[in-house]
């Protein structure tokens, strides 16, 4: 009985500290173009950021994108992890934002083949309830590249 109560108390303590932490999470829209391919990929992803702070954060995303048949493969799925650093207050937009830099890495697959990739986003703007990235550069394991023209992450929590 003592052991059972001890386990329950440990689980409650661990989970309460976990849920008390200020997680960020929401959905993400992305617009990508790949080297040597006409068409572009329109993506929807889920995103969580369990570790986030003013100057450093760690997030995970998973989702899919489609080119509506204009590129090959027509659709693909991806999972990634990203870190962002820096926090420079800016009034570039109509309300205050924080300029950041993000680095991410992940895997894309259409379930027939897969690619590892790394990405750098030099223009990341955090507004509190959303993050906007423009002109991200992605390098793939086959030495090709892609441009993430625009990425919008809207946080639900």
């Amino acid at each position, binding site marked *: 009985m003592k052991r059972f109560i001890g386990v329950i108390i440990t689980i409650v303590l661990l989970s309460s500290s976990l849920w008390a932490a200020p997680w960020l999470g929401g959905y993400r829209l992305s*617009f*990508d*173009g*790949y*080297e*040597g*391919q*006409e*068409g*572009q990929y329109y993506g929807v992803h889920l995103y969580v950021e369990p570790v986030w702070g003013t100057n450093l954060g760690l997030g995970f995303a998973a989702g899919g994108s489609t080119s509506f048949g*204009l590129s090959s493969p027509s659709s693909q799925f991806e999972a990634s992890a990203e870190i962002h650093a820096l926090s420079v207050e800016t009034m*570039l*937009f*109509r309300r205050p934002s924080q300029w950041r830099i993000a680095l991410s890495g992940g895997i894309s697959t259409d379930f027939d083949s897969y690619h590892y990739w790394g990405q750098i986003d030099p223009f990341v703007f955090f507004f509190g309830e959303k993050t*906007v990235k*423009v*002109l991200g550069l992605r390098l793939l394991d086959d030495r090709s590249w*892609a*441009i993430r*023209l*625009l990425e*919008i992450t809207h946080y639900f929590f």
Partner: protein
Amino acid sequence: MKRLSIFFLLLLASALLFAVPVALSFETWNSTTITAPAASVGVSIGVLPNLEVQGAFFGELAPSVGNRIGGVGTLTIGAVNPHYYADPTRAPLYFNALVGLGYLGGWNTANAEPFGTIFLRLTPLSLGASYYRSRERTFGFGVGYDHYANQWSFIVNLFAFDRYL
């Protein structure tokens, strides 16, 4: 291209001279004519309170950088509200919707052919104005007619940003 650059420089210089609102603009482009991700960088000049002229250099970013290059020119009116008032102390509404008539044209370096589209565009969500020093335009969409290929196409500007000087 040299003439175009001189034209834009003259336009910018004369706008600053006559103290009308001038913004540096960044805009993303999607179109059935363009097919790949593209962006434009240029200026937006409020020549009249309810008429804005936009001129920008345009480039495709994939499948290769500069696959299609060219320019964009647009005449835009505010559908809800003027872009600004002649009285500079009077604030326009923060929200506006925009209707624009424009031309997107240039050169396709991949197949060495020109392209050109006349388009009509509605931007339902425009937040900010010259009075507020910056503006964001989202979900702009419209129809265009490619007079080289003789076909209609859709044009989408998901996100555009203007920073007033």
